[in-house]
Structures are given as structure tokens and as C-alpha cells.
């Protein structure tokens, strides 16, 4: 089923209206809550639009460490399940000391790529320059 405007357009419009038409007229004690609402709307919109891209970036980061194939066709719930499974496997390896000696550079690169992918939704401004 197709709806127009779709959910992420509605969220974008809601956030823009809040910033443009509501925030400037609020008393100081209401600004903090309004900024939080604006932040939450923007984050929800990014998640709707970019969750699969973020998931695929995490998958690509995990593949060199976990020896698995990155299937670019995965989307939605299947993609999320695959990423969770690989992250779980990596957690076990880290916790049992697999990276106490060698491989820390590779691990750090992968972890940074994972966090970059998550930051692209949670707070894109905090993604460090490459």
C-alpha cells in the first residue's frame, strides 16, 4: 500500500514546522522540551529512511572479522537478524580474549565502522571526518 505523503515526509514536515513556526514563539521554559521533540522527530525520520543502509554498513564491517558473506540483498528484519547474529559472535570472541594480542587494529576499524553506521541515524553531526 502506498500513501502520499509517506511517513518520512510527514516526519520531516513536522520537524521543520516545529523548528520554524513553533520554537521561536515558545517561552524559555518550553524550549528544552521542544528541542527534544525536534531531535526525536529527526532521529525517527533518519531511522525510517536509513536503517537498511546502516545495517548493510554494519554487515560489511563485520564480515572481515567473522568470515561470513555479506549478502547485499538482505533488507528489513532479515538484515537486522543477520547483523545481530554476527555482532553476538564477535562479542563472544572479544570476551574470550581473541583480540587481546593480535588483530586489534582490524577490530578497531570494524568497531569504528559499526559506530559510524549507528551514528548516521542517532546523530550524524557526530560522525568524524574520514
Amino acid at each position, binding site marked *: 500500500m502506498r500513501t502520499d505523503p509517506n511517513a518520512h515526509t510527514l516526519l520531516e514536515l513536522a520537524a521543520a514546522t516545529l523548528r520554524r513556526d513553533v520554537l521561536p514563539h515558545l517561552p*524559555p*521554559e518550553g524550549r*528544552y*522540551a521542544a528541542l*527534544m*521533540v525536534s*531531535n*526525536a522527530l529527526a*532521529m525517527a525520520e533518519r531511522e525510517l529512511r536509513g536503517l537498511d543502509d546502516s545495517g548493510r554498513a554494519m554487515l560489511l564491517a563485520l564480515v572481515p572479522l567473522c568470515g561470513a558473506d555479506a549478502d547485499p540483498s538482505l533488507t528489513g528484519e532479515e538484515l537486522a537478524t543477520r547483523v*545481530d547474529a554476527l*555482532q*553476538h559472535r*564477535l*562479542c563472544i570472541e*572479544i*570476551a574470550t*580474549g581473541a*583480540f*587481546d594480542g593480535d588483530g*586489534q587494529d582490524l*577490530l*578497531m576499524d*570494524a*568497531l*569504528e565502522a*559499526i*559506530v*559510524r553506521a*549507528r*551514528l548516521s541515524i*542517532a*546523530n550524524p553531526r*557526530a*560522525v*568524524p571526518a574520514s
Partner: protein
Amino acid sequence: MPDANPSVPPTRALLTDENRCRLEGWLAEQAGASRATVTDDGWLGSGGFRPNLGVTLTLADGPMAGRHACVLRAETADRISASIGKRREFAALRAAHGAGVLVPEPLFLCDDPAILGPDFFLMRRIAGVGAGFAVVKGDAPMPDLARELGRQLGRLHRITAANPDLEVLAPPPDCPAQEVIRQCRDWIGDAAQRDPVLVWGLRWLHVHAPLPGAVVLCHRDFRTGNYLVQDGVLTAILDWECAGFSDPMEDVAWFCARSWRFRRSHREAGGIADRADFYAGYEETSGRRVDPQRVAYWETAAYVRWAAMAIQHGRLHSAGGEPSLELALTGRMLPDIEMDLLRHLRSAAARAVAPAERIG
């Protein structure tokens, strides 16, 4: 005796006509006055968390006769595991005040659920700006403020478990590093099954844990945002709800962590000045040198602990308590904290400082 009396939801009015009468009667008795009146001056601070209610206490007679601007701090339902409860917080505040640390004077503690319900205490209200972004706003660094904060922290760190007022706190841990790792694992819970960044942070802490050294009373949330400044001068150190015994370098590192620089990343001491300013003040009063290697260890611990606290905030929101957008958004700060953790670990690796003594 239970650990704490029932808490109040953070958005509900704390004072009602009914409980105000009980509060006034109780305060009159505590202050040795024939009559006490309390006026509600509203919630303090701009945040969504509401632990601080401004009140004016007027005592008709007795040794404290007169009007007193106060803060009433009551236990709230959004308490996370790092929070020690109002009775212990009051004890830590009193010990700090007794040691000459610049804190609001603690006045009265109540753990009788018949008065307001939750545990609460009153302390004096101090003027000043507290919000982190407002404190670091100026373009000029504030080395004098950083030095003074260092001095205050040094004074606090002269307090040990020998202080009898602190018997209510958890006993000092044999190994503060292992204790923090245990706490963080506990708070992170199931998330450690699927978050390799946090698991790496915990593993790093385990492998690099330093041998125990001095264990002192620590604030454990000593940072920009938790002190008040007026005209560039420190007026009070606030928010003692995480206080406990630990390695003194934990507080030094927490203050300098990127999380509390409020986008003034280049000013490594709390977004206000250089580390050297803060360290110099600390060494003036603490009786010990700042150990940069230990500080680097505890800065890793700071990111992992802050991440664990953010997870708890997010969990409080999803656990079906009071709906709170602020708690929900704090839970979504995890990637920001983890990026700071990775950045710090990379710089620690680049310095390639091999610890002289380690456990684990």
C-alpha cells in the same frame, strides 16, 4: 530498614496542601522552632529530570530563625543503579561540607515515609549557572575556574572511609577497577550480548586494570553540568547522588572525558580549560600527584560507565514507568559515547604507554 522509601514519579507535584503541613511540622521540630512555613519556588534547572525543588523555609524562632532559600531533593522514580539514594547522598554531602568542599550546606534529612513518602533532604540554595552549554559558552578558556575545581576535588579526595559519617555508604572496594567492571557488566546486562564496542571496552578494562592504590571518597559524577558558576567563579558542587569510595583518578578522568566538554572538545578539562590547569589545582590540595597513566585507564572506564548509565536510562523508559522523552533520548546517545570511547582507545594505543603494574 528498607534501602529507600517509595519514590515519586518525576512529573508529579511533590508538595500538596496536605503534605506541606506535615513537612512544616517536621521541619519546625528538626530546627527547634515553634513554627515553620515552606513556600514552593518551583523546579530548578531546565532539564526534564526534576530532582530539585526550590523552596523557601521560614522559621519563626529558634537557632535558625529567619528565611532560608533551600533546595528540596527527593527520591524520584527515574533513579538508576548508579544513584545511591537520598540518605547516602546526604551523608556524602555532609562529609564534603565538613571537609571544606564548596557544596550547598546540607540541613535536614528525612527518611520517615509519613512526611512526604519518599526520602528527601533540604540543603541551602546557591546562586549560579549550572547548565553545561551555558558554562562553556564563552570563547575564552577559564583556567582559574578549572584550577579551583581541581582544588575542590583535591579537598574531597582527602576524605577516607575512616570518616564515621560515611559508614552508610557501600564499603570501599578492595579493587576499584574490578568493582567498576562488575558494576558496568551488571548495568549493561543483555546488551553485552550484541554490542561489540561495549564488550571491547569491558575487555580492555579487564586486561589493563591497574593494581589498587588509594581509595577515597569520590563524587563519581564530577563534571561540567554538575557545578554552579557565577560571574566566572565557582559557587557550588552539586549532584552527589553517585558518590562512593573509589580510585581518586576516577573523578579526575570523569571530569576530563569528552562527554562533558559540551562541544568545546579542545578544552580537555570539562570544556573550560586545559588539563594542566585542573591538575595543578588538584595537586595543590589533594596531597598526591595526578597519574596520567591511571587517568587514561579511568577515562576508558568513564566512557564504559557513562554508556552503561545511558543504557539504564533507556531501559527505564522502556520498562513502562513514567514516559520520558529525555530518558528515551539519553538511551539513544549510546553511539556518541561509543565513538568517544573508540577515539580514546586509539589515542591510548598511539601513546603506547605500557603500564608498569597490572592485574587481570
